């Protein structure tokens, strides 16, 4: 056995808790499809459950909540640029869709 303990040490119960929570959240997001929710309700629920799951994995399983701020700023801020990219590409996709309607005819 170790004479001293180093690195990330947290009670094992927290991993079981997060594991259980991830199971519950996955079941809930599956139910969104199973119960056939549609429209904005569906999209909102999908994104909320997705972000909760992602947050739990990064914060606890990847130990980000116990790291120093220098690390989590370096890793978690740059993906913010992706939001800008999503905005640009959705504007582009809308434009493509519009020109396809104009030049190729009827909508679905």
């Amino acid at each position, binding site marked *: 056995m170790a004479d001293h303990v180093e690195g990330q040490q947290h009670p094992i119960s927290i991993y079981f808790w997060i594991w259980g929570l991830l199971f519950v959240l996955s079941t809930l997001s599956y139910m969104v*499809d199973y119960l056939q929710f549609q429209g904005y309700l569906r999209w909102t629920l999908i994104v909320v459950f997705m972000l909760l799951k992602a947050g739990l994995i990064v914060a606890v*399983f*990847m130990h980000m909540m116990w790291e120093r701020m220098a*690390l989590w700023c370096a890793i978690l801020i740059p993906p913010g640029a992706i939001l800008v990219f999503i905005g640009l590409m959705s504007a582009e996709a809308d434009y493509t869709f519009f020109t396809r309607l104009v030049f190729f005819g009827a909508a*679905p």
Partner: protein
Amino acid sequence: MAESAVPLAPGLRGIAADWSSDQRAFKNVPWGKAMMWIFLLSDTFIFSCFLISYMTVRMSTTVPWPNASEVFALTIFGNHIPLILIAIMTFILISSSGTMAMAVKFGYQKNKRMTAFLLVVTAIFGASFVGMQAFEWTKLIVEEGVRPWGNPMGAAQFGATFFMITGFHGTHVSIGVIFLIIVAVKVLRGSLDEERPGFMTGRKGRYEIVEIMGLYWHFVDLVWVFIFAFFYLW
């Protein structure tokens, strides 16, 4: 602290000396772990590019997008259940993340047998995930006739984005399974206790490699959370 009296080297030698000088931005984090985080950040951008291109083609097509709920439905014992295979794959990957997190904990306690056992369980979960994905691909290609350039259900871009995104993710899982087995062998034969250097590196073996392996594995699970939400549920 006082500057050292050694003069700074010019040119290429200077670049190497400057970048390797004794500085540390991420306190309490071994550099191998910091580098894994930075690799995962770059991987985040790659997967984002795939998912954003999927969004772009799905938004811009005038043909209806195939209904994932129906495409990935299975009939089990006469019951038609929508999206069931994908739900099972999701639970398997989450379970593998749970066993991986515990392997990291037992690793830092230097409990060799539990660490190796949990790593092998994680690898088995990962391998079964890849197996189910192979089943899913076979069903889609052989029975449903989905191709990267078209399919009978709707928008032609469905196949291209599906094979690209899930294929790249499945490759990540497969590579993860191989490395999980390598790390499990290292743990079991005591390479980390004896600080034996690895095959391709002169660095001493330490239990932090279990945590670095864990970061990669949790990332694979994290990516699946986004694929599940955007590709299968949306």
